[in-house]
């Protein structure tokens, strides 16, 4: 079993505040969908930020394809092949949808190819095509989410990290979203997502991770995680499962 990304025992936090992530670990295998769940404030978003270089890692290692990523800037990490869509969506509010997509392919040098891929994306997401010239900031919550997600498809990274991709999406679109994710993983893009919609998330994932209080509490095949009664009670809304 090959490991694409390995996070061992890392500690990270904001500024000189307390360590929010303290002893988290994670193993990402190529081509699979990984889903992190955990209560609010567990540190899920923080963990992803630490991996992609937005926060400095105080202790521990992040190793990607055998190379340490600690201390690199986000833009450098992106160029290595890890792409992150944060929870706050990170769109350019005053740029049009098309320009946002163009920014998504900023690291591509071939302009022609970029435009071709953008057209491909617009083809795939009619919502976006209709609004190709609207400013991203004026789109509805769900539309923005779609855009943020679609943007990552442009550069075809090795790993896509998504922070709550289903957030604010209509049920129909949520399903589409997970379908896209599956398709991505089928195309060889490894997916790491954080989900509060844990049921959906785990159902569509291969590997499940439970994070709480900044550390990995539980790690295993998604189905196992989903089935564990303790986890159901603590993190999945026990009554529902019962």
């Amino acid at each position, binding site marked *: 079993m090959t490991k694409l990304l390995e996070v061992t025992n890392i500690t990270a936090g904001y500024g000189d505040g307390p360590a929010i992530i303290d002893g988290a670990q994670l193993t990402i295998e190529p081509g699979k969908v990984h889903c992190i769940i955990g209560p609010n404030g567990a540190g899920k978003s923080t963990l992803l930020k630490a991996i992609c270089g937005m926060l400095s890692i105080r202790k521990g290692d992040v190793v990607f394809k055998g190379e340490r990523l600690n201390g690199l800037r986000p833009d450098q990490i992106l160029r290595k092949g890890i792409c992150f869509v944060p929870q706050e969506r990170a769109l350019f509010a005053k*740029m049009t949808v098309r320009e946002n997509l*163009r920014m998504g392919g900023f690291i591509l040098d071939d302009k022609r190819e970029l435009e071709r891929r953008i057209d491909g994306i617009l083809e795939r997401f009619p919502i976006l095509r209709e609004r190709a010239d609207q400013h991203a900031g004026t789109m509805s919550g769900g539309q923005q989410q779609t855009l943020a997600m679609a943007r990552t498809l442009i550069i075809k990274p090795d790993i896509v990290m998504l922070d709550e991709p289903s957030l604010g999406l209509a049920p129909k679109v949520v399903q589409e979203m997970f379908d896209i994710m599956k398709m991505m993983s089928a195309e060889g893009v490894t997916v790491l997502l954080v989900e509060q919609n844990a049921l959906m998330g785990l159902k569509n994932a291969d590997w499940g991770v439970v994070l709480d209080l900044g550390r990995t509490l539980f790690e295993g095949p998604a189905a196992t995680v989903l089935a564990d009664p303790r986890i159901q009670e603590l993190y999945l809304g026990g009554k529902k499962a019962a």
Partner: protein
Amino acid sequence: MAEILQILILGLALGGVIALMGSGLSLVFGVMRIVNLAHPALIIGGAYITYLAFKTFDIDPIAMLPVAAVAMAAVGVVLYRLLFQREAKSAKYSEMTVLLTFALAMMVEGLLGGLFTNTQRVTSPDYATAAFFIGDVFIPKGQLYAGLVSLAIIAALSLFLKYSRLGYAIRATTQNREAAELLGVNVQFISVLAFAIGIGLAGAAGSLVSFVFSFFPAKHWEWIAMLMSVVVLGGMGSILGTVVGALILSVVAAFVGTWIGATWSTLTFFLALFIILLVRPQGLFGEKPEMA
């Protein structure tokens, strides 16, 4: 009729120069969210470079423009690294920079004062005090050249921002630093670049200003409010707005100055600012804020 035309010409000619003076300010604000109160002081820095070249080697001020621009851009790089880099991520950035640049303005003034004394200077190439006479009206050569050069520079800059890849990166960084970083933009580099361009514009403006106005280190205080009015009228951050704002205000000020009184011509700038705040707070070309 000739009188009206004449006043119009004079207003436009002055407006062209003011547009360049303001555009760097607008760029640095638009891109960096830095309200650079030191901009006029740096313009004076550029003017001194030009003046020295003119005085010692008799180099034409317009020919000196690229040199002044590059030199000031280099200064910009240093300033950015020293002053602004640390805070660039802070939420209060924009507000803090107002004060930081206020401090910078004082430092630049002090430094220039130490180097060049507070004597007023001006470069006097032939065209600075000459004019084209066309029948009853005349077009001052100095202002005309300065205005044309300004507009050319601004046009080039706008094209650069709109269409080049770096331009894209600059705009993206402005809007969402974090997102840009996540998409592979080296935001540090982009910030330095944008700031350097802004200060470079100050240098360029300095070259032109050197023969249009006379200057000394403390002069910048007189310019800041006027330039700011122009920038706000046009819409903070919009370079096109700055140009239009500068031209409109200069023309109106010229009419007010001639017909009502010179005292009131400066008032035009500030009054216009209030009126615009009243009826269109975001400025002529600015983005509408969330809640009216």
